[in-house]
Structure formats: structure tokens, C-alpha cells
């Protein structure tokens, strides 16, 4: 039997691996050639993706997949690539909150990576290391895992090139131009490329008109863009199985309980829970409330919206204490941020679970207390909120890790400055310094504390260069939650503040901070437009502003006490 010539064998191997190396059917009359050959690209398979790397002048297209029992030969991954794989595994449940089957199982083995094709941009030999390393496989790993646990193939016209961290945030990669040129040269079947949002403009410059660039800030957003409505379909289908439905409902609820940091992008959670409520027809009361709870909390995290009814008293009593306390914390925060449920009813329920001595409280109880402080600050009791936040911070720093103190400390700093209490602000600043020497507040809490500290300093002295540098940095960090970035823009220098005007038209959250920045300017100049700006702010964010106004806050009070 005649062996296949090596060049043809190599081409056939690349074509058999997936659809990426196949030319699009609509160019150069290839459609008719294909028909003649009775040969078509393989259908994309779950758990298989393509990715691209650059090493010197060499660009390589890879096939990444999960092979059972290490059946396939694989190139060895280096330390950075392994770290990316771990980050992708951690980020997946945060980004795809309720649909995973077993991320743990999927991440037990390193993925198999196999070389498909290379291109070399000048005469010479391919530059190849014994191991493949670097962070640029991150999003590809993530899509591979998502595809595997969802049993849903990544579309064959998609390739990803972005780094990922454990929070699911996407970051830029080196050599983007060469990578995109490599994709165009090596993978003609690929027509869409997902990159980090902060590299989207650069990518478009190098896309050559043949690649559609998808910029995403988070892995969750990338999932939405790549899988589209198929995620919703999977969710609807899952509801027909009672056991799976109960598992998913519980997953939604647990995720909502954990807090804002549990997911980078809450809009898929809100949409998923809403879709489950609309399409799962056999929900019991318990399942229904858990989904309503998840939908409302997700909407609050996303945009200070979401309607959360008070739970049935029996239902609440039936929860374990720590779950009950967490549910109440969310109810209080829901009240503070959206205005619903009513403050009186929520406080009545929550006050029973607040521990009188913060040093004796469990962490969820401290959080509930902190949530109440936030509500008090909006409902005419800012002094009490300031005093209690100081106590909560000191207790959290004494008993727990500094990261657990980030929320009450942020509020301590913010309220001290808003109320003009210099001594309280200095004490808070000292507590911050001390906590920083003990390990800091972590990636999630750190930006909140930094923002509260910097805006407080700027309220006391608008010329504080150190504080200005902090808000400038925060305003430019695309990996931070949007409300942190936009709030930082409000306090930042003119170039950063200009972004609010630039983006307000298409980013509703930016519009809020644009109005706040305009309000600051109006108050500084004594412009009478301030009241109408507060009206506009209340229209945009009725929860907090409504609380403040109902409790007698004027325009200047709203500007000082607006919570973000």
C-alpha cells in the first residue's frame, strides 16, 4: 500500500483536526471544488478549540482538546501556560455560574495541545521550544473547558487570543499583530477572533478585513459572544429534568448568596434566572423564590436594579442560620440600592440577626451589619453608620483577614470624608496603612478601599497629587468592575473625566457618573442646575438617591453621600 506523501499527510491531519484550516466555502469558487471532492470540514466538537502562539518569527496554530487517558501525543506546557489553565478552571464557575457539570473533573488533566500548522515570516527554521509557555492560551483554555462541561462545541469560525486571570478578567497578549496574521494565513476557516477589550482596536488594525474582532472584558462576556443563544437553550432544556432543575436552581441561589465577587459579569446570571422563571413551568415555591432571589441580586450587582420580595417568614426560618443571615444581608443591600423592599420591614427582620459585639460575630453577621450601615447612611443616619463602620473594621481586622475588612473600611473612609470628619478619616487611613502592611485587601477589595481613600483625600484637598494618581490609575483599569472605574473617573483628572462624556451615550452606568461629575461642577460654581441634575440622577439610580431625598438630602448631600 502506497504511503501518503508527507506534505499531503500533514495537510490532511490539519484538515481532519477541525474546521479551522479549511478555506471558507464562499471564496475562490471552492464550494464547487468541495462538492466535487465530496469532502467538507469536520463539524466542531465539544472540548476542542484552536489557538495561536508566536515564537520569534514563527507563528503556530494549535489544536487544544481534552483527550481521555492521555491517548494523544501532546506538547508539554510550561509554567505560565499551566497557570493559565488553572486560572481558566477557577474562572469558569465564576463566569458560567450555574451550568457547569464538573469543572473539577475537566481540569484534572492538562489539555492536549497539538501543532496544526506553522508559518515563518522570513526564511529560516521554525523556532520551537521543548515546552509551550505563556499566558495567551488563557481564553482558549477557558472556552475549551466551557465547551467541554456544557457539551457544546465552540463554533469553528472562532479563535481566541487573550490572557485570563482567576477572576475571569481578560488581559492583552504580546505579538497580537503576528498572531492575527498567523490566524489569517494558517486558519482560513476562522473568521472571528476574540481578544481582550483593551486590544480590540489594535486587533482591528491587523484583522485585514477578513477577521471580525470581538473585544471582551471578561470571560463571561466572551462566552456570551461566542456561544450566543445556545447557552439559553441549554438552560431551558435542563429545566425538563427535575433533578437537574433542582441542581441548577440551587446553583443560582448559592451564587447569589456569595456576593458580587462570585461572578465577574452578572448579566448572564440575571438573564438565566429570568429565563428559568419564565420557561420552567413546574417550579415549586422554594425553587421559585431562589430563582427570584438570584435574578434580583444579579440585577442589583449589574445595575442597581432588581425587584426582590420579602421571603415568606416560614421559608426564612427554615434556612440554616448563616444562610438566613446572608439572605438578610442581600435584602438590606437590595433595599439600599434599589429602594425595595421597604427599609422599615427589612430592618425589622435584619436587626434580629445582628450581633451586638462585632468581635464575637461571624463574618456573615459582620456583613449584615455593614449592609445596615450602608442603608443608614442613605436614610439620614450617616453618623451612626460612620461610627459602626469603624467598629466593624476594627473587629474584622482583629479577627479576620484584611480582605474581610475592605467593605467596612471603604465605608469608614467614604463617610468620614463625606461628613467632613478629619479625625475619623485619619484613623481610617491609619487602619488602611496597617492592613496594607499585613497583606492588603486582595484583588477584589483593594480597588474599593483605594477608591474610598483617594476620593476622601480629594474631598479634603482637590490638589492631592497622590490621591489623584490613584483615581487616575483606577479609572484606566479595564479589569475593574465598571462602577469602580466610572466612579474613579468622577474624581480623576480632566482627561480621565472626559471619558464619562465620551462613553455616557452608550454606557448607562457611565451616564450616572457623568451626571455626578456635572453635579460636582454645578455645586462648586453655585449653578442652579444642581437640583435638576439630582432629578436626573434619581431617574438613573432611583434606589440610593430616592432614599437620600426622602430623608431630606439636598443636592450637596446627594453629591457627598451617593454611595459609590
Amino acid at each position, binding site marked *: 500500500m502506497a504511503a501518503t*506523501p508527507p506534505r499531503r499527510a500533514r495537510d490532511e491531519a490539519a484538515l481532519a483536526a477541525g474546521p479551522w484550516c479549511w*478555506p471558507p466555502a464562499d471564496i475562490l469558487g471552492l464550494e464547487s471544488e468541495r462538492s466535487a471532492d465530496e469532502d467538507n470540514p469536520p463539524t466542531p466538537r465539544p472540548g476542542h478549540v484552536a489557538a495561536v502562539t508566536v515564537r520569534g518569527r514563527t507563528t503556530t496554530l494549535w489544536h487544544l482538546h481534552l483527550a481521555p487517558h492521555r491517548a494523544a501525543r501532546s506538547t508539554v506546557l510550561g509554567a505560565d501556560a499551566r497557570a493559565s489553565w488553572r486560572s481558566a478552571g477557577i474562572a469558569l464557575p465564576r463566569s458560567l455560574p450555574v451550568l457547569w457539570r464538573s469543572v473539577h473533573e475537566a481540569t484534572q488533566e492538562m489539555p492536549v495541545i*497539538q501543532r496544526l500548522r506553522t508559518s515563518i515570516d522570513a526564511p529560516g*527554521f*521554525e523556532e520551537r521550544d521543548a515546552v509551550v509557555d505563556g499566558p495567551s492560551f488563557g481564553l482558549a483554555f477557558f472556552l475549551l473547558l466551557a465547551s467541554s462541561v456544557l457539551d457544546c462545541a465552540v463554533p469553528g469560525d472562532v479563535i481566541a487570543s487573550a490572557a485570563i486571570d482567576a477572576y475571569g478578567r481578560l488581559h492583552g497578549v504580546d505579538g497580537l499583530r503576528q498572531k492575527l496574521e498567523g490566524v489569517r494565513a494558517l486558519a482560513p476557516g476562522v473568521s472571528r477572533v476574540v481578544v481582550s477589550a483593551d486590544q480590540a482596536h489594535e486587533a482591528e488594525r491587523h484583522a*485585514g478585513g477578513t477577521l471580525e474582532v470581538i473585544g471582551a472584558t471578561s470571560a463571561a462576556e466572551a462566552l456570551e459572544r461566542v456561544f450566543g443563544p445556545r447557552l439559553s437553550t441549554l438552560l431551558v432544556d435542563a429545566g425538563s429534568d427535575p433533578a437537574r432543575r433542582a441542581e441548577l436552581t440551587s446553583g443560582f441561589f448559592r451564587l447569589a448568596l456569595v456576593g458580587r465577587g462570585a461572578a465577574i459579569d452578572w448579566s448572564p446570571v440575571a438573564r438565566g434566572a429570568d429565563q428559568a422563571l419564565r420557561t420552567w413551568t413546574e417550579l415549586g415555591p422554594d425553587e421559585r423564590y431562589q430563582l427570584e432571589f438570584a435574578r434580583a441580586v444579579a440585577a442589583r450587582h449589574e445595575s442597581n436594579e432588581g425587584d426582590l420580595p420579602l421571603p415568606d417568614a416560614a421559608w426564612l426560618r427554615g434556612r440554616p442560620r448563616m444562610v438566613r443571615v446572608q439572605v438578610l444581608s442581600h435584602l438590606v443591600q437590595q433595599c439600599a440600592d434599589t429602594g425595595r423592599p421597604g427599609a422599615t420591614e427589612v430592618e425589622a427582620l435584619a436587626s434580629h440577626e445582628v450581633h451586638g459585639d462585632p468581635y464575637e460575630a461571624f463574618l456573615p453577621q459582620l456583613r449584615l451589619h455593614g449592609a445596615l450601615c450602608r442603608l443608614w447612611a442613605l436614610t439620614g443616619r450617616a453618623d451612626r453608620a460612620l461610627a459602626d463602620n469603624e467598629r466593624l473594621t476594627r473587629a474584622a481586622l482583629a479577627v479576620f483577614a484584611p480582605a474581610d475588612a475592605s467593605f467596612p473600611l471603604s465605608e469608614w473612609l467614604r463617610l468620614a470624608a463625606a461628613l467632613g470628619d478629619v479625625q475619623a478619616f485619619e484613623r481610617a487611613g491609619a487602619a488602611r496603612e496597617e492592613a496594607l502592611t499585613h497583606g492588603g485587601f486582595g484583588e477584589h477589595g483593594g480597588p474599593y478601599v483605594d477608591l474610598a481613600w483617594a476620593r476622601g483625600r480629594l474631598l479634603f484637598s482637590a490638589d492631592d497629587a497622590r490621591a489623584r494618581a490613584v483615581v487616575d490609575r483606577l479609572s484606566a483599569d479595564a479589569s475593574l468592575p465598571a462602577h469602580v472605574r466610572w466612579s474613579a473617573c468622577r474624581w480623576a483628572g480632566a482627561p480621565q473625566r472626559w471619558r464619562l462624556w465620551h462613553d455616557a451615550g452608550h454606557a448607562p452606568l457611565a451616564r450616572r457618573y457623568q451626571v455626578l461629575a456635572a453635579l460636582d461642577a454645578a455645586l462648586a460654581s453655585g449653578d442652579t442646575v444642581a437640583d435638576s441634575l439630582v432629578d436626573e440622577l434619581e431617574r438613573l439610580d432611583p434606589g440610593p438617591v430616592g432614599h437620600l431625598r426622602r430623608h431630606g438630602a439636598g443636592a450637596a448631600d446627594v453629591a457627598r453621600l451617593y454611595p459609590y
Partner: protein
Amino acid sequence: MSILPFGDLAALGLAPEMIGPVEHLQLPTPDVDQALGISQPDVTFVLSSRVAMNARDAQPLAEGASDALVDARSDVLRAIGVDLRLDRAEGALQLEWAADTDVRVRDVRPDRPLPAAADGYVRLTLRQVGRFLVESPAGVPLVLGVLEDDTLALAAVSAWPAPPLDHWTGPMTDEWLQSTVARALPGADAWTRTALAGAIARLAAVAPSSHAPGASSAGTPDDGGAHALLRRVSASPATIGPRSWARGLDPGALASIEEHARRRAIALEHDLDHLLAVFPAEATEARAAWTRVCHRRDDLEGVRLLLLEAGAGDGLDEALRDTDRAGRSLRLSLNVAVDDERLRRVALGDPGAWWGDPAYEVRLL
């Protein structure tokens, strides 16, 4: 720098002007495994048209084992339809080709006998210094390779007498063509000179002043182009000289030229197929990329004319059919404006040529 001393070239029956620009490929440095002390076999060339061979035991490579082979890019080999790869573990180079660009490879060191041909592959073992010649199955020399130290040098071999371009350009009044030839001439090998001869035969004109170098974009299709076209049909020393030269070539030289041209046509077809996917987005780069492929096609057209003049060229015509199909398809998919006197003249002379300046083609069609 020559790929070999003149004396060594002469011993191979080659003149310096038959050797094209030399391409140097630095062999990769040893990887971690090698640093750990795995012994290396003698450096070996594995040359195969049918199977990928393991250099050490001459067994076909297992499926998937091709990952051990490192790709290489050699524009010199690619121009004749041959791929180059390296098996680092075995210390072997592997040349691969498709059926329509079949080659044979022979060791050209004087103290080495020609290797025995096996079924589908040939193996040459080279120690320290290696020289090899890639030829067509009919024995037309195509590429000379020299492995010295850690560098592989490759050069196209155009083994026919170079045309006397100086004799034809001296009396020419076409300033553009004169300067074009003058720029390309230093160090040009026989292939380049032959392509230039074809260009002189096809594109020479008594150019009006508006078509002086650098002024081509100022003119319009009607303000002299048609006159130039009419004048070009008249015989002149420039148009007659290359044709006469071609008619005087012996069959071996004609076969060599045609074999080179045929392979370059096939390589151009592959590059055209590839170009749509990788076509630059930026206008200047796009124009440059398109102009490059158009010039390559026009080189072939010039050579084709000379071959036809000598009663040869059927093989080239056959290869160009696929090339031109790819070129026309690509042309229809792209909208690239060029600013190139050569392509303007192409369009004036042959309005149907896909590689001509689109602006002039439209007017004349």
C-alpha cells in the same frame, strides 16, 4: 557572497551567473534534551517523495510523530515547489514535494557516489560539510544546497547561458525600461536576466515624456498609452534581440528555462490561493503585495514569450492555466489600485491580463 568558490562551481559544470541569490538558514540550536546529552547521529538528509522516513532506522514515521519535525521556510525551495523540514531528534533534513513538482536530489561532493534510489526516497548522509543538488526528474538543476557548520545555504540554479541584456538596452530609448533593467542587473542570475529579456521583448516602447520614471500615474489611458502600444508592435532592436537569443538556445537550455518557469507558475498559483486570506488591510502594504504577485506573473509571461519564440513552452502554458484561474479569481475579490508603470504597460498590451493595471484594463475593455 557566492554559495561556493568559483572553482567548485566550475567542477559542477556551473557558472557564477547561473547561481541565484543565496538564502542562509541557521540551524536551530540544540534543545533541552540535547543539552542533557542524548547522542546525535550523523547529520543526515532524508529526501522523500512518498514517505516520511526516520533517519536512524529508515522506518516510516508513526502517525502523529510528524510533530517531531520542525518546519522551515525556504523561499528558494518553495519557488520550485519543495518544502523543507528538520527532524531535530534525528539530525535530519527532510525535503517534501507534491507530484507535480517531483524532484530528485543528489550528493555532489566529488568523493561521494550517487546514492542508490530506493522506493520513494533517497538518503544522503553528510558529514561535516555537505553539498547537494536538487534536480527535476529529467535532470534539470534547480537548487544547490550547502550545509556548513550550523548553516544551510540554498540558491536557485539557472543552468543556461544568461541573455546579453546590455546589447539590447544600450540602443533603447525607453528610459523606464532602461532604468528598470539597470536596477535589476547587478548580481542578477540567469533566471532574472531571462525574465528581464522577456520584459524587454514585451514591454519596450518609445515612451512619451509623461511616462518617464515616476510620472506614470500622471497620465491617462488615452494620452500616449495607445500610441506606445502601436509603436511597440513595430520591430526594434530591443524586441528582436531577446527573441533571437531565445531561438538560438539549445534544447537543454530551453528545457531548463521551461522547468524553472513551470515550477514558479505552480508556486505562484499556491501563493495566489493563499493571498486572499492574508491580504494586508493597510493600503500601502496591500498595493505592494498585489504588485509583487503581478510582477511574478509578468516575469513568467516574458519567459513564456521567449519559449514560444523558440517553439517550446507547452508545459509552462499548462501550469499557467491554473495560475491564471487563481489570479483572475483573486483579482475579482480584491479592489487594489496600483501605481506601477510595468503593470500599466501590461494592461495596454494585453487588456485581458489579470495582472495588468486595473485602471487601464477597464478603459480598454
